[in-house]
């Protein structure tokens, strides 16, 4: 069982951000970022840029496609928040699913398995 909770919603832009609270690694890192104002600022700037359609690849990088939507990495320094982006009833929904470190030759396979695990999440379960 994985619980996603709404961490940000903008009705004007029809934009919502959900966080997977069942993934301990992700929750831990998200809380860590929330306790650091510089990192919070960077994270918020990515979210606001995505909302305004002005995010660049240094902030929000496309990683893969799946049947539910596109998988992007929210990049905050060395932190990577792997996010499923779905269109749902006019809304752009961001589901922050997994956490990973910046991609290197050493962790390349681990990152790939993290990304590959995201499409296995059932969208019906997510939205239920």
């Amino acid at each position, binding site marked *: 069982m994985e619980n996603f909770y*709404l961490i*940000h919603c903008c009705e004007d832009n029809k934009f919502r951000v959900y966080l997977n609270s069942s993934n301990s690694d992700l929750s831990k890192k998200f809380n860590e970022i929330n306790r650091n104002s510089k990192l919070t600022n*960077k994270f918020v700037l990515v979210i606001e840029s995505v909302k305004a359609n002005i995010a660049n690849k*240094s902030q929000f990088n496309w990683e893969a496609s799946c049947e539910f939507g596109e998988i992007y990495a929210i990049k905050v320094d060395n932190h990577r928040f792997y996010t499923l982006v779905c269109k749902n009833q*006019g809304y752009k929904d961001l589901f922050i699913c997994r956490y990973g470190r910046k991609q290197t030759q050493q962790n390349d396979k681990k990152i790939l398995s993290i990304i590959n695990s995201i499409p296995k999440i059932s969208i019906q379960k997510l939205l239920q």
Partner: protein
Amino acid sequence: MKKVVKTSSNSLDSYIEDNRMKIDEALVSLRLMKEIDDFLDDNKISQRDFAGNIGCSEAYISQLMAGTKKFNTSFINKFEKNYKLKIDFKIKTKSEYAVVSKMANSHIEININLIEVIRAENIFSFENKPNEFSEMNSNFITI
């Protein structure tokens, strides 16, 4: 079974609310940086090479891309001179800006949420008439 739990208030929203002005200022800079990022991508220029070409540090470009630093006229001047480009600043109304969310050499991205508004205001035709499209000068970037 996975479920969605809605929270009415949280730290992210309160941070955004408390820092609205600062965030909006960064977003102005990020609008240009998005265009520059697309330019670098189209021309296969790495951020490292870009930094070297315009005489800035890689860290500075990285901070501009993250929105933690804002561009200045010196940066724009160096960019224009080094790549023989012209950044074209145009004032647009809010509705006009929102309708065309992105203009590239190959395509124009339109905010589909506003299609009914466009129809109502009769801003432009939805008929497919190629002669209604004007040519775009690729040497100009509009932000």
